[in-house]
């Protein structure tokens, strides 16, 4: 074992995290290398010095203060329970109102297309995508992507319901 490798392993050696093979290799190197023995002693001193510095205890009443803030948060935001999953992870990556507007315009256009009677769509609907160069998002669940909650209570066979069925596919994405 070379000295630079030995010195890399020392940290995990002291924490007793090294697998047996590496530990034995390191120990046999240490027996023959005064330089690394000294390095190991210096590392122990350094870590001992670092750890001698205490952190103050958790401030009194910390839990109570967090719970008060949690209560206020719930009052402001409503209950924690979410009836439906929130939009997929790309949503958090900074979608601009312009992009949402653009998407909404495309969605409206699509809806009009359906209403005009493009029956031939139905067989390929489950993999339909919308070309959105600005966000490059596949439409996996129209309800989630566009937050069109108001379409969900629509009667069977209505245009909105057809639209939703066309643009939705099952998704196991993590929300």
């Amino acid at each position, binding site marked *: 074992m070379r000295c630079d490798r030995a010195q890399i392993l020392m940290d995990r050696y002291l924490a007793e995290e090294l697998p047996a093979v590496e530990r034995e290799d390191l120990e046999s190197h240490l027996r023959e290398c005064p330089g690394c023995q000294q390095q190991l002693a210096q590392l122990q001193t350094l870590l001992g010095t670092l750890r001698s510095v205490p952190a103050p*205890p958790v401030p009194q009443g910390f839990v109570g203060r967090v719970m008060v803030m949690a209560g206020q948060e719930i009052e402001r935001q409503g209950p924690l329970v979410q009836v439906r999953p929130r939009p997929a992870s790309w949503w958090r990556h900074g979608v601009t109102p312009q992009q949402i507007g653009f998407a909404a315009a495309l969605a409206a256009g699509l809806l009009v297309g359906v209403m005009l009677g493009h029956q031939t769509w139905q067989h390929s609907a489950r993999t339909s995508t919308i070309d959105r160069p600005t966000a490059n998002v596949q439409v996996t669940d129209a309800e989630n992507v566009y937050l069109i909650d108001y379409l969900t209570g629509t009667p069977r066979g209505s245009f909105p319901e057809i639209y939703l069925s066309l643009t939705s596919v099952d998704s196991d994405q993590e929300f």
Partner: protein
Amino acid sequence: MRSDEELMSAVAEGDLSAFEQLVRRHQGTAWNAAFRLVGDVHAAEDIAQEAFLRVLRAASRYRPTAAFRTYLYRIVTRLCCDHRRRIVASPSGDVDAWPSQAPLPEDVASSQEVHSSVNKALASLPARQKEAVILRYYEGLSYTEIGQVIGATRKGVERLLARGRAALAGKLSELLEE
């Protein structure tokens, strides 16, 4: 005793007492990490509180892909990073300040000089080295866990720690030779 993951799913169902149990169980984790990272009791309390509120807000989206503690460290580390940026941006900020309000036990008062040197040396490290060093030597995380918290490979963590230790040894050389 319910596991962290069980408590988190209860929180997602709106169970505030489960949230309180989580806060009680992990307050030390959030507080210590925040305090070590920002070196200020007031900022550390704000950050630890905010970290738990974020846990609450995100409960319904939480998936136990890593230990809850790792998840909490990740939130705390990010909040500390934001805090650091704000401090750097504001001219009155002083990252090196060891808080005078910190209630230290009497028997360590004589080591105040050592503490102050160590804290200054830690504060002077580049952010990621400092995060790695604190998570390793004060919080006792493995390289893999540190990687999950700060978003680095195991090799990356190894390098950050090696550089961090070398920098600390240099800055504390007088102290270490005594």
